[in-house]
Every structure is written in structure tokens, then in C-alpha cells.
């Protein structure tokens, strides 16, 4: 092979690096001329060859500068990270060229050609993204059809939540459990009452009007709080020595884990009312919350079971030798340790839960993705699907990415602790 004859070596380093960089430069010039200036210097060659000329030139150049232990730190770094073999060189060049080719047009669509000012679709004239759409609909995307005048109630409910979490975080550990109890048992009732209203002079807002991002948070928060005790009981049941309890738990867990959430939601919408006495009406949102809770509880049970199994047997035996009964042993000794072991798993379940919330559209509840769906079919805003989904995707991505990062950190921290 011709290329292998010219074996780059350390003796004439400068010559090789000079020629190599020149070839790489040529490749890049050819590429830029092709992409941005519509010039084709290599038009005299066959089409395919001309198309791949930048890569060919670049690989030739990179081959020439691939000198091991050259003594030049920058060169060594480039060689180990981007240019360890011809195959790697091709891949690096392809990635660089693709990025250069697509990032400018993406950025143009996103920012430089996008429209931010105005109030109607007609204000979007520059050809990029029409963020006016998101701006106009932002209130709906966050609060759904909740009446404008009452939105302070949602805000204050979330503010209360953050305040509670914040104070419990900074309070002395002696009081932390009380805050936890308030969060788990009293706050849900206060929050629900605050948002739904009906008492204390607050106007009643039916759950059909709830929506947008706030509904995503409401559904995921309630489902998480509720699925926790259910999952715990199921996990204990699955490890129980009593056959009837064990097989019931196994059956329950495997049933929910075996079916998709969407069928469970369908069930809550059309099948569940059939099982209730005639004339009973259970609110749509409550039905959805029950369905999601049971569904997630099955997954939570498996996560918690993992923690129970990972706990050394000595802990059980020690608790029993102190004369503790089943419940005291589990509540005081086993569960606190087991739950700490599976915090990352719980975080992952929560992440999956947040990603599953858009599915509630099947029963007619519209959270963020559902609101985007609704907004894009508005006759005045047709053709805005791209902007809407990109916006919704970004919001979800930020939430989920932050959560997954947090759970990864937690995992690292916990694994080093042990």
C-alpha cells in the first residue's frame, strides 16, 4: 500500500507535520468552499470522489501527522484523542464536517432567524422558528385552562411546597421527620384543596380545567407520594413467608408490570366506572391518579424489593434477637436501611413517572404535551407543531436531565459511602 510506505517518523517530524497539516487544511478549505460558498474545486473528478475529497485529503493529512511520542504535547493529544488510527481519523473528520454543516442552520432556525416579538402568526416573517407562538401560549402551556384570575393558587401551592422542602432541608435533623410527615400527609390535602377550591371562599375549579406543566408536576408529585406506601407494602408482601400474601403480591406486581400504562389509563377511563355502583362518579383526575399510582407502585415495589434483598441477613437476625416483631423490625431496622440503598432506583422510577405523565391525554387531561397538541390545531396558529414540540421537549429535557444527573451523583455518593 502506498500510504504505508511513507511511514511518518520522529526524525523528520517538521516535514511530516507541515505536509500533513497542509493536506488537512486543503480538506477543510474544500469542505468550506463546498458548503458555504457553493464552489467545487474538485469538480473535474468523478462525482463521488469529488464529494468525499475533503475526507480523503483530511485522512491523508492526519495519517502523515500520526507520529507516536513525537515530544510535542499538542500533537500527541490530537493523535491519541482524534487520530489513533485511519478509521478513527475518518470518523473524526465525518463528525466535524457534519457538525459544521448542520449546526449553523440549526442555530439560525433556533435563534438568529427566529421571531420573538409580536402577538400573531403574521408577525413571524423571517423564516426561522416562531417563538411568538410559545410566548402567546405560554400561560396555557403552564396552567392549562385554569382561570387567569385564580392562577395565584397554583403558584402559592408550589411555593408552599418549595418553602416546606427548603425549611425541612435547613432545619435541625430533630425536626426533619415532622416536616416529612407534614409533606406526606398534610401538604397533599392543603395543596389539593388550594388548587381545586370549593371551600374557604375559593372558587371551585373543576379538574378538567387543570393542565399544562403544572398538571405534570401535580400528577407526578401525587403519584410519587401515593405509590410509595403501596409499593412498600407490595415489596414486603412479595418477600413474605405467607403464601397467600406472597402470591397476591406477585400477581398484582406482575399484572401491572406486564401491561402498558396506556391500557391502564384506558381501563381507568372506561372499565373502572363499570365496577362502581351505578351513579357514583369519581373525578377523572382522581381515577387517573389511582391508575398511575397502582402502575408505578408495582415498579416501586420491585425497586424496594431490590433494597430488601441487598440488606445483609445479619440485620434481620440482629433485630429478631432483640425480640422485635415483624412490623417493628421492618419499620425501625430494615426499611430505613433498605430505602437508603435504593434511592437511585427510586429516582429512576420517578424519572420514568415524569416521562409517562403526557399519556394522560388518553382520558382527555392535557398537560404540557397535550396543550401543545391543542395549540397547534388552533386555526390561527396552524403549522407551529415544530416550535411547540421543540419547546415541550426542551422543558421535559431540562427537568429529566437535571433529575438523572442528580440521581447519578447520588448513586456515586452512596456507592462510595458503603
Amino acid at each position, binding site marked *: 500500500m502506498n500510504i504505508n510506505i511513507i511511514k511518518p517518523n520522529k526524525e523528520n517530524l517538521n516535514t511530516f507535520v507541515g505536509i500533513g497539516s497542509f493536506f488537512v487544511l486543503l480538506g477543510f478549505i474544500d469542505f468550506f468552499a463546498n458548503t458555504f460558498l457553493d464552489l467545487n474545486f474538485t469538480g473535474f473528478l468523478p462525482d463521488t470522489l469529488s464529494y468525499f475529497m475533503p475526507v480523503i485529503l483530511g485522512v491523508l493529512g492526519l495519517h502523515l501527522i500520526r507520529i507516536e511520542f513525537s515530544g510535542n504535547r499538542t500533537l500527541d493529544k490530537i493523535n491519541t484523542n482524534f487520530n489513533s488510527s485511519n478509521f478513527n481519523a475518518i*470518523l473524526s473528520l465525518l463528525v466535524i464536517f457534519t457538525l459544521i454543516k448542520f449546526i449553523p442552520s440549526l442555530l439560525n432556525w433556533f435563534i438568529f432567524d427566529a421571531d420573538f416579538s409580536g402577538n400573531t402568526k403574521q408577525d413571524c416573517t423571517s423564516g426561522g422558528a416562531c417563538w411568538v407562538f410559545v410566548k402567546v401560549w405560554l400561560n396555557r402551556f403552564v396552567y392549562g385552562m385554569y382561570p387567569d384570575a385564580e392562577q395565584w393558587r397554583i403558584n402559592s401551592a408550589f411555593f408552599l411546597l418549595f418553602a416546606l422542602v427548603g425549611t425541612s432541608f435547613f432545619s435541625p435533623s430533630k425536626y426533619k421527620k415532622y416536616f416529612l410527615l407534614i409533606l406526606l400527609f398534610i401538604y397533599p390535602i392543603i395543596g389539593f384543596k388550594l388548587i381545586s377550591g370549593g371551600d374557604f371562599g375559593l372558587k371551585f375549579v373543576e379538574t378538567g380545567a387543570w393542565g399544562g406543566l403544572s398538571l405534570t408536576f401535580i400528577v407526578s408529585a401525587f403519584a410519587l407520594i401515593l405509590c410509595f406506601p403501596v409499593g412498600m407494602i407490595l415489596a414486603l408482601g412479595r418477600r413474605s413467608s405467607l403464601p397467600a400474601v406472597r402470591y397476591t403480591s406477585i400477581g398484582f406486581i406482575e399484572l401491572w408490570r406486564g*401491561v*402498558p400504562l396506556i391500557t391502564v389509563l384506558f381501563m381507568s377511563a372506561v372499565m373502572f366506572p363499570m365496577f362502581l*355502583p351505578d351513579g357514583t362518579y369519581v373525578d377523572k383526575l382522581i381515577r387517573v391518579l389511582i391508575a398511575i399510582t397502582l402502575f408505578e407502585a408495582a415498579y416501586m415495589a420491585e425497586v424496594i424489593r431490590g433494597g430488601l434483598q441487598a440488606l445483609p441477613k445479619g440485620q434481620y437476625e440482629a433485630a429478631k434477637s432483640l425480640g422485635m416483631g415483624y412490623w417493628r423490625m421492618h419499620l425501625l431496622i430494615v426499611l430505613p436501611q433498605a430505602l437508603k440503598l435504593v434511592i437511585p432506583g427510586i429516582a429512576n422510577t420517578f424519572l420514568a413517572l415524569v416521562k409517562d405523565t403526557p399519556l394522560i391525554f*388518553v382520558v382527555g387531561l392535557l398537560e404540557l404535551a397535550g396543550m401543545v397538541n391543542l395549540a397547534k390545531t388552533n386555526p390561527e396558529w396552524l403549522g407551529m407543531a415544530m416550535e411547540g*414540540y421543540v419547546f415541550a421537549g426542551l422543558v421535559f*429535557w431540562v427537568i*429529566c436531565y437535571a433529575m438523572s444527573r442528580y440521581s447519578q451523583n447520588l448513586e456515586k455518593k452512596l456507592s462510595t459511602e458503603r
Partner: protein
Amino acid sequence: MIFKNFKLDLNNKSKDLIPQIITVLFIILLIVYFTINAQNNMGNRGISFGFGFLSQESSFDIAFSLIDYDGSYSYARAFLVGLLNTILVSAIGIFFATILGVTVGISRLSQNYLISKSAEWYVEIFRNIPLILQIFFWYFAALRALPLTIDSINFYDISFLNVKGWYVPRFIWTNFSLFFYSIITAIILVFFVSKYSRKQRDEYGKQIPTFYISLGILFGLPLLTFLIGGVTLTFKIPELTQLSKTIYVYQGGVTIIPELISLALALSMYTATFIAENVRAGIIGVNKGQKEAAASIGLTKAQILKLVVMPQALRIIIPPTTNQYLNLTKNSSLAAAIAYPDIVLVFAGTALMQTGRAIEIISITMLTYLSLSLSISVFMNWYNKKMAIKEK
């Protein structure tokens, strides 16, 4: 007082029994309560429980079907159409998710900084956006941006892509069954050849080039049917025809509807991120000493990968990946959101609306998914047992 001395004597046996009896009683009561209510409700609406409706005429159309179907077929047939569509999109999704996932997973371990970073960002981006949003994005935003029928994107004049779907050539076989049987025979033959060659290697130390022989059989036998069996294959390329002044359609080929494309795209790109993480974990999980030991006894790089690294990595990779396949199959039910006629849309949607038989239809749908899940997990357990390290 007599009662003062009365103490409920709970020996160990009955102590265990009481919670169990309570559980069983609770479940029975719940079922009885639900059944009575359901009977009352159905009585009020004048319907009775039963699966007889399955044989009734369905009288609705399905946009995309792998088998013959129209409104005159029964509900059971509609169920089958939905099931086949679910299996189709799951199979396509699994195929591409595996390819993409393995590629990305290996890329994440690449020494090349750019490659590993791009793979990492691919995983981070697509894993953290809800699948339903991705499906919406592909269906309502990306695929709607494709050109109209008249200026379709042309792939070498045999396949066309436009906003109505992707038109590919139709395969027209004669004597297809012969071809099919020849492939089956070839697979069976390959199985015996590999068994024979293993025996030869183990007992006499002879190396037989199994790979090339298998390849020869796999391609040779079907080829033979073309040459002497009278099997022919022709392609019918989709052609642009003008229906009226402004309406153009492609006729003659196979249409892959945009619902299927966007669903398969979203499912495979989403699931690929999880498979990539599994693959990465599997390869990292193989002890470095294994590779060094293999190299020290003189195996080549390809042999190390094939004989030492991969068998051990697969043991880590396969169980969670099967789980992801299962998730993909379950996630394909999101098809209902974009009106791809899968089992949920056809059966739990349209058929339920028409018949009003909520309990029967939802139970059948859930049971179908449940049996799919259970059969895959049975397979997984069998495979795990087979692959588990046999310690001597």
C-alpha cells in the same frame, strides 16, 4: 371473673393464618363487589357479559393491515389485524434499536473523543425526552415537512418518500413456498453442520471452516431454487399516476404509512439509548484480565473479541436488553396517539366505541400484552439459565 383469664391462644400456625385469611377474604370481597356492580351496570345498559361479539361483523375499516381486512370481517379479525400491526412495529423497532444501540454503546467506549462525546450526547438527549413527545415530533412536525406527492424525494427511481408515506417496490414471487422451504432447510442444515464440526473439533481436533460452509448453504440453497425450482422474483416499482388535475398518487408499490415510520423511528431511537447503556455496561463489565490472558495465549484481536469478550459481555447485556425489548413492545401502544392502527387503537379504541363492551375488550387487550410479557420473561429465564456460568 372468667373473662379475665380468657386469652386468645395464638400459636404459631394460626398467627400465620389470620393475615392470609384476611388477604384472601379482602380479594374475594373486592371481586364480588366489582362483579355485582358490573352486572348491575351492564344490566342497566342492556348488555350481557360474553365474548360472542367477537364473531360479529366489525363494519369499520383499518387504514393499514398486513392481512386481508375490510368492514365485513369479524371483530376477532380486527383484533388480529391490530395484533399483527403491533408485532410489526415492535419487530421493526427492535431491529433498528439493536443496531443503533450497539453502535452507540460501542461508540461511547471509543478512544476517539468526538465519537464518544457524540454518542454520550445522543444518549442524554433522547433518553430524557418523553417518548410520546418524540413520536409527536416525528409525526406532526418532521414528517409533515416532507414534500408533496408531486415532488417526492426520489431514491434512484425505485423508491419515493413524500408526506403521504414511503413508497417501496412490491416483491412479486412465483413459487414462493418452495423458496421459503429452501430457507428453512438451509437453516436446519447449518445447524447440523455446526454440530458436526464441533464434534470433529472436540474429538479429533479437526478445524472445519464452518462459517464459509454455512454461508454457502444459506445462500446456495435458495439460489438453487431460482435456477432449477422455477422460483422467480420481480419487482413492481411504484409509479406516479394522476387521478385528477391536482391529485397524484403512487400506485403499484408497497406504501409504508407515515404513522409507521414515525412510530418506528421514535421507538428505536428512544430504546436505542437504553440498549446503548446496557452494551456499554456489559463491555466495561468484562474483566480486563480476561483480555490480557486471552492475548497472552496468542489469540488474535478478532478471536479475543469473539471467543473471550463477547460471550462474557453478552451474559451481562442480554437480560436488561430483553427487558428493553419488552418495554419497546409495550411502548408501541403509544401508537394510539398518532392513529397507527395497533391493537390498542383498533381494539381498545374503535371496537370498544362501537360495542361498548369495556370489560371484555380491555381484559383481552391487557391479557394480550400480559402474555407477551410473560412469554418473553420465560424465554429470558431460560436463556439466563443456559448462559449462567457453569462452575465446576
